[in-house]
């Protein structure tokens, strides 16, 4: 179980996020360290990216319903971590983007991931090609495939490895099991 989500803050179509937006995504068990941010907009995107990454990691054939996903967001030594049941991860947030990656606690090594500027119209295809290129640079010949649910995996070294993609506005990213 691995998941990823990116929000590109430069998207001009994004409306400001405030209390009104929060009611659409909040779970009663959601919690965060008060020291992380006092900016409601930044906080919204931390929760949103975390919940969407967790949703993708769960690989369930259900719709994304952020209010159904509890998440705990903590900060230690400047790093922002997330926890939701047996899924852990971290968030990198700056003025340009919010990126969350997460994985099941049972996975011992941090998955590979990459965030990049998207230049192609078909971002779904572009992010898949980027993953194959990323693996090639590591001397790995990978091939995209799907699991029995129709969700993406990448085959290499004789094994299917979980992978998840995300793209928003001019940014795209992937995460892949090592």
């Amino acid at each position, binding site marked *: 179980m691995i998941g990823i989500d990116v929000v590109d803050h430069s998207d001009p*179509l*994004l*409306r400001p996020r405030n209390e*009104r937006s929060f*009611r*659409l*995504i909040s779970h009663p068990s959601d919690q965060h360290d008060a020291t992380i941010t006092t900016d409601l907009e930044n906080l919204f995107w931390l929760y949103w990216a975390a919940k969407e990454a967790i949703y993708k990691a769960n690989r369930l054939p259900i719709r*994304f*319903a952020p*209010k159904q996903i509890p998440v705990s967001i903590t900060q230690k030594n400047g790093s922002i971590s997330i926890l939701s049941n047996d899924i852990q991860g971290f968030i990198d947030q700056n003025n340009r983007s919010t990126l969350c990656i997460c994985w099941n606690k049972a996975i011992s090594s941090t998955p590979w991931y990459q965030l990049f500027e998207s230049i192609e119209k078909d971002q779904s295809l572009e992010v898949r090609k980027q993953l194959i290129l990323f693996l090639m640079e590591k001397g790995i010949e990978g091939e995209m495939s799907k699991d029995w649910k129709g969700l993406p995996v990448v085959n290499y070294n004789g094994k299917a490895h979980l992978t998840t993609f995300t793209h928003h506005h001019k940014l795209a990213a992937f995460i892949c099991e090592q």
Partner: protein
Amino acid sequence: MTREQIKDELKGIIGDYVPEKELLESLSEEHELIGDLKINSAHIVDIVLDIEDKYDIMIEDEAIGKMGTVGESIDIIFQKLDSK
């Protein structure tokens, strides 16, 4: 207000967020907002807020998980307008 009128107005709202405008030409109630119309999931919140502003209604908090298709979105608006 008829269902068809709401569909036309919803088309105007979601149109801003549909990256490939030609997809709007044959818009049907079965179209999935994310899967078929390729709307980024982050914009579902924007669409809910736009709908609330346009109709002066408050959409239920769980709307994001329920507004999967154009038809389901129309249902939610219709029900809210009906109980107004």
